[in-house]
């Protein structure tokens, strides 16, 4: 077994374990912290796949900005433990069955209907570095990049408008 495969298996186990921890933990804070760990392991996968720029963006944007926002809202709402509400009895089994169906379907497609021929040759040295990504982003994908800025502006305005108190509303 090569060192690459060992590393992959260890990281895959960590990723799946942290995802399961997020699913099963009762407290929202623990779930958020598990998710941070999950994002970090996925960032290491990106590094293994020759995507250093994406890996660091993952850490700063996901594990940094987005999860801090999550933790902030969890602490703001102060509702990290929900009271047990009555649940539909058939809901959990049905969810598990549907999820099992999805995973069986995708793994079947990947293993038996797969036409991807994996070319694991040597890459050019600059593959995935910030310089080549920047070149791509500002030449071939300039319009989508500009549209992203509008999207972020709309999201910002939306967040402000949604959390603003309505006129005449009493606290």
């Amino acid at each position, binding site marked *: 077994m090569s060192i690459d495969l060992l590393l992959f298996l260890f990281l895959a186990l960590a990723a799946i374990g942290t995802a399961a921890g997020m699913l099963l933990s009762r407290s929202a804070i623990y779930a958020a912290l598990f998710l941070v760990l999950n994002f970090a392991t996925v960032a290491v996968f990106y590094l293994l796949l020759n995507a250093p720029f994406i890996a660091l963006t993952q850490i700063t944007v996901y594990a940094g900005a*987005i999860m801090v926002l999550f933790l902030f809202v969890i602490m703001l709402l102060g509702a990290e433990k929900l009271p047990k509400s009555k649940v539909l009895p058939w809901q959990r089994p049905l969810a598990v069955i549907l999820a099992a169906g999805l995973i069986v379907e995708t793994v079947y497609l990947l293993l038996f209907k797969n036409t991807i021929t994996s070319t*694991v040759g040597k890459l050019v040295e600059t593959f995935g570095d910030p310089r080549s990504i920047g070149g791509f982003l500002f030449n071939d994908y300039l319009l989508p990049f500009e549209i992203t800025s509008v999207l972020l502006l709309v999201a910002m305005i939306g967040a402000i408008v949604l959390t603003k108190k309505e006129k005449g509303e009493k606290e």
Partner: protein
Amino acid sequence: MVPVLYYLVLSAILFTMGAMGVLIRRNALIIFMSIELMLNAANLAFVAFTRTFEKLDGQIFVFFVMAVAAAEVAVGLALMVAIFRTKHSIDVDQMNSLKG
């Protein structure tokens, strides 16, 4: 290097766990986190394909997915705060009326 197929299977597993989280959890915040998990699984598949086909377009797409996820989280959490203000709960079972 590890075959790309392993990465795709891992991505499928993570995506399924995210989907299961959306189905079984009642806390709206955790449902949100599960959606992030699914987006992340898709990103992993994108980067694996980028490595396989040696084209950078997939990495650019991951970049855009991250931007959309950031926008989605900002608006979604604002919605959550607004809902909490009127309902005093973020249990999705409580969100069963359009107004009030």
